[in-house]
């Protein structure tokens, strides 16, 4: 038995113990703030270095310039000493490759998701889903190697047979490999979304004598559209930020073109080429990588925020 005094003491002791707990709690809070610090760090370092870059090159020239040839003067009086830092060819190149990737990944990913969610038996699903996930787990450097080694020569050979002129490093090769890489991203997110459509809607449609595919196309997909759109946005953002595949398979030629058979370059590939090898830190050439990084960060952030909002909203709708 505890008497009144003992009880009071034990309460006081437990209050003293709380100091330790307070410390643990503070530690936990600071750990969760690390994530915020990382974001702030990213924004701050990108903005700061970009600001220094924009003292060499006006923002307008960077965002709307049509020519990209980052030179740094070796001698002061060299011809074309300043180079040109117009990001438009890089942006169009990035968009071209991402568009090819999405054109490959969207039908494949959606069709796989629909099949897995609606038709496949449990056993098929248990086998096929992890196998598809492997595609997302393979390092992108492997896709880059494969695209440069196999896909690009294959496209070139096929194209030449058909009388087309194909560059040895074409946007198509990089886009194809990237498309396959993001198939599992689209399929697994869309699979979740399709599964979240209530069974009662399926029953209603099937009960009226619709075939399964009519039910899917006319009832389930329209109901799942917002969620699927979210997954496609997320996949696009991944494609835009993907680096190694384009570095290895798309090349560095900053062509302003919409022809998928030509070589194009992307924001990420240029960042890599600007920052690997010899570099002097304060040159416009080196700093331009950060401006490109800021551009990339802004584009992907917009897509991600939109995608996460849509998906969240969609989840709440059927919860």
């Amino acid at each position: 038995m505890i008497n009144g005094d003992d009880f009071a003491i034990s309460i006081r002791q437990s209050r003293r113990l709380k100091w330790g707990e307070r410390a643990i709690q503070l530690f936990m809070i600071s750990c969760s703030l690390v994530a915020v610090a990382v974001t702030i760090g990213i924004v701050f370092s990108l903005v700061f270095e970009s600001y220094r870059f924009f003292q060499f090159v006006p923002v307008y020239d960077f965002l709307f310039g049509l020519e990209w040839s980052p030179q740094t003067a070796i001698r002061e009086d060299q011809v074309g000493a300043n180079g040109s830092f117009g990001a438009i060819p890089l942006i169009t190149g990035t968009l071209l490759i991402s568009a090819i990737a999405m054109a490959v990944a969207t039908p494949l990913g959606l069709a796989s998701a629909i099949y897995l969610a609606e038709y496949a038996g449990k056993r098929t699903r248990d086998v096929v889903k992890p196998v598809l996930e492997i595609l997302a787990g393979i390092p992108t450097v492997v896709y880059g190697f494969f695209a440069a080694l196999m896909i690009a020569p294959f496209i070139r050979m096929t194209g030449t047979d058909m009388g087309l002129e194909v560059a040895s490093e074409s946007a198509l090769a990089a886009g194809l490999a990237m498309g396959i890489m993001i198939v599992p991203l689209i399929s697994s997110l869309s699979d979740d979304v399709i599964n979240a459509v209530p069974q009662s809607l399926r029953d209603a449609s099937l009960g009226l004598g619709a075939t399964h595919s009519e039910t899917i196309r006319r009832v389930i997909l329209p109901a799942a559209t917002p969620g699927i759109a979210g997954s496609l946005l997320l996949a696009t953002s991944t494609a835009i930020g993907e680096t190694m595949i384009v570095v290895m398979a798309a090349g560095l030629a900053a062509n302003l073109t919409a022809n998928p058979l030509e070589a194009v370059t992307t924001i990420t590939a240029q960042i890599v080429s600007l920052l690997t090898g010899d570099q002097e830190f304060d040159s416009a050439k080196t700093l331009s990588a950060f401006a490109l990084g800021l551009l990339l960060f802004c584009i992907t952030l917009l897509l991600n925020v939109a995608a996460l909002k849509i998906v969240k909203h969609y989840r709440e709708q059927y919860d």
Partner: protein
Amino acid sequence: MTDSFTQLTPELRRRHRAEFRFQWAGRLAILIAIGFLVVMVSSIAVLGVGALQQTHIKLNVFLDPAQIDTNSLKEADYGRLVKSALKARFPDVSKRRDRRKLYGLISSEAAFTLREKVVQDPSLVGKTLKLWVIASDDVDMLIKGHVSSGAAGGEHRISDMEMRWIDEFRKSGDIETRFNSRFFWSGDSREPELAGIMSALMGSVFSLLVCFALSFPVGIMAAIYLEEFAPKNRWNDLIEVNINNLAAVPSIVFGLLGLAVFLNTFGLPRSSPLVGGMVLALMTLPTIIIASRAALRAVPPSIREAALGIGASPIQSTFHHVAPLALPGMLTGAIIGMARALGETAPLLMIGMVAFIVDVPTSFVEPATALPVQIFLWADSPERAFLEKTSAAIIVLLVFLVLMNIAAIVIRRKFENRF
């Protein structure tokens, strides 16, 4: 409307055909995706498996006492001895250019192999030593059948004359392929026949150790706070949105952060696994937090109620009861995050882990490279033999990834369905 349920009108037939096509579109999509995977992995495996074998050539080296000073065994010109052995084998080669080609049949490593033998056993001096040495990459490719013999021309590096020499070695059984253990334990080299993955592998190991040591504790602490303690308010919502967005930031941006902050501001050593691991840790953190929160959410509330009900404080309830139960799930998430970090290349390029590293790194602050970066570097090399090495390195990388994922699955299987 039909009168019978068995009678198929043309309209119904059309609908059933559409159904059939729709199902097959799904199957086809899956087959294409999996087919691509199979083609990619198997073609790389076929290319890479050759790197497990290395061509060796047998030479009869006369250890001429006139050439070797027994007092300083290490100093002798073993390269010349090897060359003499080759000259002795093919005495009719007289032109200087041809001789150089002849010497090119074997790797420059041969002289070092010979030196080691002699230093180990000085009594060999004066005798003729039968020595297997590593053949050059061109010979290696020829023996493995990757370069077609006979056809002369610009694209082949093997001339008819060299073919004749190699045939002669072949006839006398002095050329053979052996298991290439060197590939696994040596560092990078400009010579494809000598290049190995150990330096890159150790670079990856050191980076991942740093990455795990930083991201795991911080990640699970953040997850515990957000899941168990954080009050639902705007500030914590912001942290949550922030983590979700961070998970989708392109990896190269983390590399830029590392370059600007860790290298240029803090002045940490460039190209080191320490910085590489720090960058990877920042990248992995959101993955670990999200996975750990899911693991915590899977612990039933009854466990918390039971602990709180017998007078445990919320901190005690969490750290004594809830967190241990969620640990396997957290660990699974961490391993999957580590696997992704292992395959990551782009951010490491930003912080200079893209160097030519011959020596195997032994600490966190030496310049190093990582396995995927090594793949990237080799993939860029023009020699045919590096194609084989690149593929083999990819296989090694994939084997590690598979092992990590199996570990994650085993942990999950072992601990799931306990509640």
